[in-house]
């Protein structure tokens, strides 16, 4: 502490220590906030199977399932001061034909829809155009957190992704369910997904499975005409 340079170095050195300690405390504070998300409705509204090509120049034809769905969920308890954004996604799952031990996946799982919900503190990172960005910022003006963004109410949503299977066959598949997942991305700390079991104050996401449904057969009249958008 004899000269200015030594004091500068010591101050900066201790600043890094304090910053690290504060970051640890912020990360740990997640454990003390209850996460009690709930799902009201998760159901399919319209399911189709069409034939199409994986890309424009492909000669291979695959079957694609287009699953429209409705979702009503309350994820507002996931939004705390340390939440940067929440990634919400819906998967379709169905058991493999051979079951486990057949060399295939025991359960097939494919994402059909996803969405990023930013916290007001992370709005500037959202991948939006200037108009949508202004609207997003105005929606939470003066708020440091906005749990109301976690309330999802989506009706007859078109899937973002049409799904298929490595075998290219999905038509007439039975026992398909939709499942809602979330992934909390904090400012500091670890990524967390919806837990399979209650963990301290973090409760499981109940009712995140839809009823079992079957994918329909191919529509005959669409055959050979419908391409995919992917």
């Amino acid at each position, binding site marked *: *502490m*004899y*000269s*200015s*340079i030594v*004091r*500068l170095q*010591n*101050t900066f050195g*201790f*600043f890094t220590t*304090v*910053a690290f*300690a*504060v970051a640890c*405390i*912020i990360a740990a*504070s997640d454990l003390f906030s209850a996460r009690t998300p709930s799902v009201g409705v998760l159901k399919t509204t319209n399911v189709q199977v069409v034939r199409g090509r994986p890309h424009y120049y492909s000669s291979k034809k695959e079957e694609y399932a287009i699953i429209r769905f409705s979702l009503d969920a309350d994820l507002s308890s996931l939004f*705390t*001061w*340390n939440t940067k954004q929440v990634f919400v996604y819906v998967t379709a799952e169905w058991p493999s034909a051979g079951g486990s031990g057949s060399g295939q996946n025991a359960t097939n799982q494919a994402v059909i829809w996803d969405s990023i919900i930013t916290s007001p*503190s992370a709005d500037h990172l959202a991948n939006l155009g200037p108009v949508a960005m202004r609207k997003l910022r105005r929606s939470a003006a003066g708020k*440091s*957190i906005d749990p109301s963004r976690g309330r999802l109410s989506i009706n007859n949503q078109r899937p973002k992704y049409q799904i298929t299977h490595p075998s290219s066959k999905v038509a007439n598949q039975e026992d398909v369910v939709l499942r809602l997942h979330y992934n909390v991305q904090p*400012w500091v700390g670890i990524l967390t997904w919806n837990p399979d079991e209650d963990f301290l104050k973090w409760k499981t996401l109940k009712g995140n499975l839809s009823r079992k449904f079957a994918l329909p057969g191919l529509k005959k009249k669409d055959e050979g005409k419908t391409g995919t958008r992917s």
Partner: protein
Amino acid sequence: MAEQLLDQARDIFEGQIDFEGQKLAELLLNVALTLVGAVACFVGYFLQDIKLAVYLALGGTAAVFVLVVPPWPFFNRNPVKWLPVGGTTPPANLVVDDKMFK
């Protein structure tokens, strides 16, 4: 003249402080920066505002830099009192490097 100016500039740049000042600077640094971290953490948590916490921490740290780094006068209130030059005779029988000083 130029040498004198250079000396002054070097003194200001080096910013030397006395021993008591060094002790005080270290104490101030540790206490103030810990306080800044604690305040930022608590305020951020209770207002649920992480941006505020970051700004408080960074602003507080900048203030601590201003408080500790420059050689403020209160770090120089106990200057070392050197003995006068040539004021005393060396003690008798002083041995340095096997040579007797007289």
